[in-house]
């Protein structure tokens, strides 16, 4: 169940961490997000999600990495080299998110570990998504051509850093990483489709690195007795993550963040009221 939920909610802009804190409390499961076996589960499912994202965008990543290498060799990011520009935008977006994540993860997760707090921040996540749609710089319109070229043209270095740094807020259960990144993409002028693409590309190194950093816990003594269920969870997570990314890439060709904003606001409000009574 947790694997299915994780894979599904990691990529939808509805906060996987928030759901994995709220759902056990609603269903009366004796799970706490700082328990070692739960962290082992998360490592396995995050790794599966990162691998799915890497596989889904494999050809893009090959182009992007080649572009990065080309620009380093030539010591410039040529204006027409979309792959290099996109690659460096992803690097610029990943560094602040990575550093803030490394330094703040433990503190934020321990401060905001409760289901009440997750429900409250789920509401905030809904408001962020609504605000992003309202604040977007231009009316959404169908665009043609290479999406990477559009992203490279519209997103600047400062904007990439800001969108990347905003990902760190997703360490608070209830705030969605993909939601915040997509919202940032919309605010800087991307279409929903391009914002989703940028968010998924930006998510891959962060989710993968976060999982890789905790792999010793999965394969160490902490993972004893949990690896079997964690493997099942990882497979379930991979399946739902693949279906989610396929669905979302098509969904955002014509749709907006509004349904997810409404869901987060309504679910967050309902859970806040429920936990308060």
């Amino acid at each position, binding site marked *: 169940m947790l694997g299915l939920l994780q894979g599904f909610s990691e990529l939808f802009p509805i906060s996987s961490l928030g759901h994995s804190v709220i759902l056990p409390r609603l269903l009366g499961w004796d799970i706490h997000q700082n328990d070692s076996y739960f962290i082992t589960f998360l490592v396995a499912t995050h790794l599966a999600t990162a691998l799915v994202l890497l596989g889904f965008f494999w050809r893009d990543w090959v182009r992007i990495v080649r572009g990065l290498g080309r620009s380093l060799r030539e*010591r410039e990011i040529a204006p027409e080299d979309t792959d290099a520009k996109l690659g460096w935008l992803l690097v610029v977006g990943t560094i602040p998110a990575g550093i803030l994540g*490394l*330094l703040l993860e433990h503190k934020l997760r321990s401060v905001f570990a409760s289901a009440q707090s997750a429900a409250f921040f789920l509401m905030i996540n809904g408001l962020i998504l609504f605000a992003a749609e309202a604040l977007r710089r231009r009316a959404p319109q169908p665009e043609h051509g290479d999406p990477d070229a559009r992203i490279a043209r519209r997103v600047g270095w400062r904007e990439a850093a800001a969108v990347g740094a905003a990902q760190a807020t997703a360490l608070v259960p209830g705030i969605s990483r993909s939601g915040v990144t997509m919202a940032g993409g919309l605010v800087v002028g991307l279409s929903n489709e391009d914002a989703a693409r940028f968010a998924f590309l930006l998510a891959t190194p962060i989710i993968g690195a976060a999982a890789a950093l905790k792999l010793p816990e999965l394969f160490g003594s902490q993972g004893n007795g949990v690896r079997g269920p964690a493997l099942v969870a990882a497979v379930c997570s991979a399946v739902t993550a693949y279906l989610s990314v396929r669905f979302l890439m098509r969904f955002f060709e014509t749709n907006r963040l509004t349904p997810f904003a409404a869901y987060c606001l309504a679910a967050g409000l309902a859970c806040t009221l429920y936990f308060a009574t």
Partner: protein
Amino acid sequence: MDRGRLLVWLAVIVGIALIVLAVVYWVEPAKSLPSWIPGHEAGSNHHHVKHGIAAFLLGAACLVFAWFRSAGPRPRQLAS
């Protein structure tokens, strides 16, 4: 020295310093870190691996910035 070159040298120095700091974080336990470095804890044998990774990433970013910034003008820029 013009402002561009100064920036390059500054990025190189900061980049190398941060990478050295990263190695210090990985090698030395928290109790052995100088007291002015974030993460120093008297009596703690904990290694601040994540602090080290953060310092290394920042250092590498500074060096990459210096690499691009110190490149000479491109042929097409010279032509224009």
